[in-house]
């Protein structure tokens, strides 16, 4: 039978043929894979730096490249659920605005304090004349004069219980234990009511009613409250705060909590010495 495939007779040749049939393809494939791998390795050598460059470029020019898309996305989101975005943005805005206003106020106050200092010092005589020339009433300048300030009462109050550990009062008209208790209760109420991110951990520092102000300086185991009347500038507030801190340092920090709680007369006497 011509043209028909001759099957080799001896076993060795037969095996070789089977091997060839089975393995040639695989060998070829393996070779190709090896090739590709080598090329890939080579390729990545070339491509990686380029890719990195590209990523960096995108990073740096993100808004130029995707700005429009992002804007559109934000617009879309904003239109879909404005509350959600506002909720995220508003505390940030609030804090910024608050900071800005507080800063502006501080500058304004300092300016006024500075002006008053100048107007009332001997070198400020020219300033005063100028002020009169320009129609500023001297009463406006004297408005925040120091004399009007009167310290009415001072209390050293135990932090949580509100028990009074020492006090000084110029006219002794109110029950000091009630004041200590109520002040502490108000503090606790306010501090507890404001528990958002910004208010957390903050403490009440001032209460104002009419011409009266209660300044509170908080310490670890107790706080000092000063009741004052009169026009009080930020500079005075600052001085007072310094005074309260130095009083605490000098007179109270050496005492144990127990000693502070049981030395009412001594603390009251010191308060009088220090603040009157």
């Amino acid at each position: 039978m011509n043209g028909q495939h001759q099957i080799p007779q001896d076993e060795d040749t037969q095996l070789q043929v089977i091997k060839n049939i089975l393995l040639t393809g695989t060998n070829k494939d393996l070779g190709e894979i090896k090739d590709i791998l080598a090329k890939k390795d080579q390729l990545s050598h070339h491509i990686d730096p380029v890719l990195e460059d590209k990523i960096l470029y995108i990073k740096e020019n993100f808004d130029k490249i995707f700005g429009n898309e992002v804007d559109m996305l934000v617009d879309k989101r904003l239109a879909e659920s404005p509350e959600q975005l506002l909720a995220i943005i508003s505390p940030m805005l609030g804090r910024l605005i608050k900071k800005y206003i507080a800063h502006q106020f501080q500058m304004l106050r300092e300016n006024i304090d500075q002006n008053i200092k100048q107007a009332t010092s001997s070198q400020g005589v020219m300033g005063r004349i100028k002020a009169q020339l320009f129609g500023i009433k001297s009463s406006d300048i004297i408005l925040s004069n120091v004399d009007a300030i009167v310290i009415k009462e001072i209390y050293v109050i135990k932090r949580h219980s509100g028990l009074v550990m020492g006090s000084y009062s110029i006219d002794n008209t109110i029950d000091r234990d009630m004041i200590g208790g109520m002040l502490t209760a108000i503090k606790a109420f306010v501090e507890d009511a404001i528990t958002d991110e910004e208010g957390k951990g903050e403490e009440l520092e001032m209460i104002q009613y009419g011409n009266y102000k209660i300044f509170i300086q908080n310490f670890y185991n107790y706080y000092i409250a000063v009741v004052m009347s009169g026009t009080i500038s930020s500079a005075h507030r600052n001085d007072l705060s310094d005074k309260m801190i130095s009083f605490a340092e000098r007179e109270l920090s050496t005492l144990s909590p127990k000693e502070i709680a049981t030395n009412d007369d001594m603390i009251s006497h010191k308060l009088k010495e220090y603040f009157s």
Partner: protein
Amino acid sequence: MISKKVILTGSFGVGKTSLFNQFVYSRFSDKYLTTIGVKVNKKVIKVKDRDLSILLWDIAGEVSQDKVPVSYFLGASGIIYVFDLTRPTTHKNIAEDIEYLKGLLPDGVVKIVGNKSDLLGKDQIEKVVADMPLHCDVITSAKTGDNVEELFQVIGSELIDL
């Protein structure tokens, strides 16, 4: 003089403010004005021949004690937990409430008070108290003043030696 902070707590409308007013001013009103925030008052009582100044904090009632701002309890030596003998809902959480309060003030004195005794008969009161999971320390009426002085004597005598 020894001063101690004592806080009146419990659900709303149980008569905390009424007990406070009866104790401090010896007066009672039928009107219900719910307390907002805190009111502090003081009364000096004689305990074991010594003067004890009680600074009494009257707070807004809450159905469950863990809703009360923790800072109100801090620094307190005593807690008076008031419930209304006529309203079971005011003592249904009592076990959890008392456990929570004792956790807040491990060294504090806690007293459980059933109020409005004037509205129920003796038998009814006994039944209410017997069905509760905890022992009720004092049964009061802020309206008639019954046992109000006694309540503060009981807590005062424990506080003065604290």
